[in-house]
């Protein structure tokens, strides 16, 4: 390689190395490889080189041109990356700033409990039915073997609405038991239904609300026994409270619409409120074999069909399961209470996901 080429090469490589921005690098490229560039001029002057040296010089020139081009390209890539990095660095944001506000609402504990009850009884083959909250006397009382003079009727503190047209006085249902009457009068047996819903009694203090929720249950078939009643309710209570060993006790009692009738207690600790141990008993629901009169009143032959019914207070189940001590806030819609006890809509009560809210 001749000296002029060596010095051009050395000079250019040094200048490429020294170029610290894309503009000066481009200027260098034009100065060397551009149309009027120094190396371009040398190439163009190749014709003037003596014949015997021309081939060798040509090869040297081309080699040098390639080397310079590649050095510039390399440098350009470097400078481009550096420029991009600098730009990105200037785009920094404070990622600790809060994001756009978004609120997820919550499901009321009563809806949650109803959902859990439906999920568990659903798995036991029960279907949900609903009924009106303004009832006539027959559905709420008469069909359920609670005649006018019956003491049980006095204990229920019924709310009354004025008669409509020729109908008798109407009542706000005092229990969801009319749901079993409507089930039995609508279609022939067998039945497995639950009736969750609002109920009303004229009573208001720390432990009573004039409106509350109950879930009635009814299972009628040809061979359902009191043993099934016990099995079904034990299965439910243990699943609901997620305590496979929950002690459950059945005590004889009386309801006009069942015979035999039973109160159901679960084991708990009165001091700590903890369920499942402690040696104390807590009354949790009423149940019994459906009274022959109730079946007959609905046109279901009690000589042929039999089964059980039960009723449970949804607020009470909720309070026990969630450790809520006061009944009144359930209906006060205090946002602070709702946020504290509410449930995420993204964790609905589905058995295969587990019932833990």
């Amino acid at each position, binding site marked *: 390689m001749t000296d002029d080429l060596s010095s051009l090469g050395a000079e250019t490589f040094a200048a490429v190395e020294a170029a610290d921005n894309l503009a000066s690098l481009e200027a260098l490229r034009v100065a060397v490889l551009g149309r009027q560039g120094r190396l371009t001029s040398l190439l163009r002057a190749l014709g003037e080189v003596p014949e015997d040296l021309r081939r060798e010089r040509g090869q040297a020139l081309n080699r040098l041109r390639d080397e310079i081009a590649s050095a510039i390209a390399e440098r350009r890539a470097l400078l481009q990356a550096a420029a991009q990095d600098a730009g990105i660095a200037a785009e920094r944001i404070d990622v600790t700033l*809060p994001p756009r*506000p978004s609120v997820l609402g919550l*499901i009321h504990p009563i809806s949650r409990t109803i959902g859990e009850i439906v999920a568990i009884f659903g798995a036991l083959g029960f279907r949900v039915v609903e009924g009106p909250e303004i009832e006539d006397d*027959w559905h709420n009382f008469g069909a359920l073997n609670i005649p006018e003079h019956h003491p049980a009727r006095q204990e229920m503190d019924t709310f009354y*609405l004025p008669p409509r047209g020729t109908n008798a006085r109407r009542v706000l249902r005092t229990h969801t038991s009319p749901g079993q009457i409507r089930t039995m009068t609508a279609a022939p047996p067998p039945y497995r239904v639950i009736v969750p819903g609002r109920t009303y009694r004229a009573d208001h203090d720390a432990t009573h609300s004039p409106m509350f929720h109950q879930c009635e249950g009814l299972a009628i078939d040809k061979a359902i026994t009191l043993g099934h009643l016990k099995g079904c309710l034990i299965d439910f209570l243990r699943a609901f409270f997620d305590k496979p060993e929950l002690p459950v006790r059945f005590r004889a009692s009386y309801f006009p619409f069942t015979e035999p009738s039973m109160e159901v207690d679960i084991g708990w600790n009165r001091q700590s409120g903890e369920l499942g141990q402690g040696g104390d008993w807590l009354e949790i629901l009423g149940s019994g074999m459906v009274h022959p009169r109730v079946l007959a009143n609905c046109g279901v032959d009690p000589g042929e069909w039999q089964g059980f019914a039960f009723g449970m207070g949804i607020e009470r189940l909720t309070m026990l399961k969630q450790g809520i001590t006061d009944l009144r806030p359930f209906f006060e*819609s205090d946002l602070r209470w709702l946020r504290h006890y509410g449930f995420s809509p993204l964790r609905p009560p589905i058995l295969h996901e587990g019932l833990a809210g």
Partner: protein
Amino acid sequence: MKFSLAWLRTHLETSAPLATIVDTLSAIGLEVDAVTDRGSELAPFRIAEVLEAGPHPNAERLKLCRVETGCGIVSVVCGAPNAHTGMKAVFAPPGSLIPATGQLLTASRIRGVESAGMLLSEREMRLGENHDGIVELPPDAPVGEPYARWAGLDDPVIEIAVTPNRGDALSVRGIARDLAAAGLGRLLPWSAVPVPSHVPSPLVWETAWPEACPFVLGRTVRGVANGPAPLWLARRLEAIGLRPINALVDITNFFTFDLGRPLHVFDVAKVRGPVFTMRRGAEETFRALNGRDVTAGPEDCVIADAAGVVSLAGIIGGESTGCDEETTSIFLECALFDPIRVADTGRRLGILSDARARFERGIDTALMPDAVEAATRMILELCGGEASRVVSAGTAPPWQRSASLRFSRLADLGGLAVPPAEAIGILERLGFVPERRDAASVTVAVPPWRNDIAAGVSLDLSPELSPAEKERMRASASAIEPEADLVEEVLRIRGLDSVPAVSLPALSSVPTPSLAPASAHIEQVRRLLAARGFTECVGFSFLAASQAALFGPAPESLHLENPIATDLDQMRPTPIASLALAAGRNAARGYPDLALFEIGPGFLEDAPGGQVLIAAGLRTGSTARSWIEPARPADAFDVKADALAILAALGVPAEALAIGAPAPAHFHPGRSGLISQGPKLLLGRFGELHPRVLTALDLPRPSVGFEIFLDTVPEQRRRTRRAPPSLSPFQPLARDFAFVLDESIPAEQLLRAARGAERHLVTAVTLFDVFAGPALGAGKKSLAIQVIFQPHERTLTDAEIKAAGQKVIAAVIKATGARLRG
């Protein structure tokens, strides 16, 4: 029903400890409400003698007593004015707890003098209210003896809740019988020793109303000396909370609780004889034994003498003819009253009494003659005197009934195969008498005190049943019910805990859905609303009529006849009313910015069943403040989005919906809308609440809400297999158009026209700008839309795109009278 253990033991021979008795009572249906064992808290206290009560050296009001406690002499400082030398008192040693205060007693110095214990007042022992001084015991009280035992206070008192079917359990004997049947001992025999007499009774019965009083017995006892009852009787009554009055009255109270047999004694001297008549009241007023005036009407059975009403039959006696210390001659009443009439009268007149509780549940008819004899004997024993012959009116109605039990039913209905012999044994111990028995069944006579067994079937049959069905139901229930009664008796005594629990047989190996599709959709709406930021509320279905009227009709037919409070007297027309009240309360607490929802009933006169199910939501105040985007007040379009999201979740196709006006009066007339499917089907409404509503309920302005009528939303066809989607390989094109049109023309009209213009090409029309200003002229607005054209077969040519655009423009102009904005 209260009774003491000692009282129970007069009927039940048992070695069972108290805890077992209590557990058994609860298990067999006599639920124990409370057990009070006063003996345990009084156990440390002993009878002591005050050997000397002298002055306290350092305090004028205090006395310094030397007290013999039975375990040594101690010095006690006492402030009681009645403390005196030689008295017998109750001594509390150091280390004991004072029942009334819970204070732990320690030996201490009081004003410089040692005091090693305390002499107690009634109130300190929780035995009464008296705190004027310490208890003074009779001189013969034995020093050193535990006070509670000496006073008969170590007798635990059990209180049970008696269910409406068990009149017989309102007696100590009835309770003892159940316990004996359950294996807790032996029921002691009881029989009355008759008091024969040939003396005629100066007073006699007459019953003018046999339906109310079919049978009554009575007898006169002359020459009685009334006074305080003996200690055993007074203590027995005191233990269960009854105040001893005098021996004669206390005897009747004793039988009310001992045998469940209410009795009454009249003071013959105060009665205008010679006939006591059972008859209807005639709006007569008399002063009852509770000191209140009672007016008996024609539906109330009374006992009257020649002067008028002296007693409200089966409920409460009269003050004017009651027995007192002066009484020397009495007339004993032992009657049978119709349970329903007693219950009705008691309820109508608002009188609760021990007699009523027993008569309305039904009493033991067969016991009446024996009860008269037993009561007479006790009167003679305690008060002396001479009894007359027993007089009566009416006849004892037949109470004899039988019931049959097929043994197989114990397992088939009760779930427990109790061996026949055991079942019969239980029934016998309960007083049933076997009449016939074979291998498969037994027929028993029902004892007269069990009015709840085989009582005769009274049905309230559905009016929908045909006469033949009704007859079949009557026959079937009559055949089944007595047997069910017996199954219940055997199982409750045998113990329901011994019935093996059996899980219900599965109806299908994989459970089928428990919710109908419509109900499942409602659960999805609930989750959707919570996911959109709403918090769920459950509000009362009733509120104040004035508040209800803000949200719709508040008709008289939905006004409660007996509300619990005036602010809870009207059924709400819509849950949004409850939400508005809730939002007002939250705003008052400092939480004005919120989103609440409720899925619940609204009550309307003309709705089927009187109620409709509504999903309601309310947003008040502003969105959250943020550095990233400014807070803005909630507006009608927030809740329009909520409402449309619900309908979409319910499967209602968006293109089927139309937005109209006007919404009802609780909404702002210019900022609200109705959502309908087709021309008629109203599915919901949304918008700003009316400023008048906001003012009335102190709600932030604006407050916006929606209501979706869930019953009205048509059930969507269940999704089956769908046609494959059209996935065009050609790029969609977006074109913008702006139109100027009359301000009054709804935007939806324009959007509908644009969407419908080139159905096979236009896949979306988006309104992205609304503008009004002087440049457009008065009463004009500009709406700008983006239209997406989606080619299917090939890329569109410029000419085709232009033609499609022209079609959109033409359709809009035709539908709205708009012009293209240049």
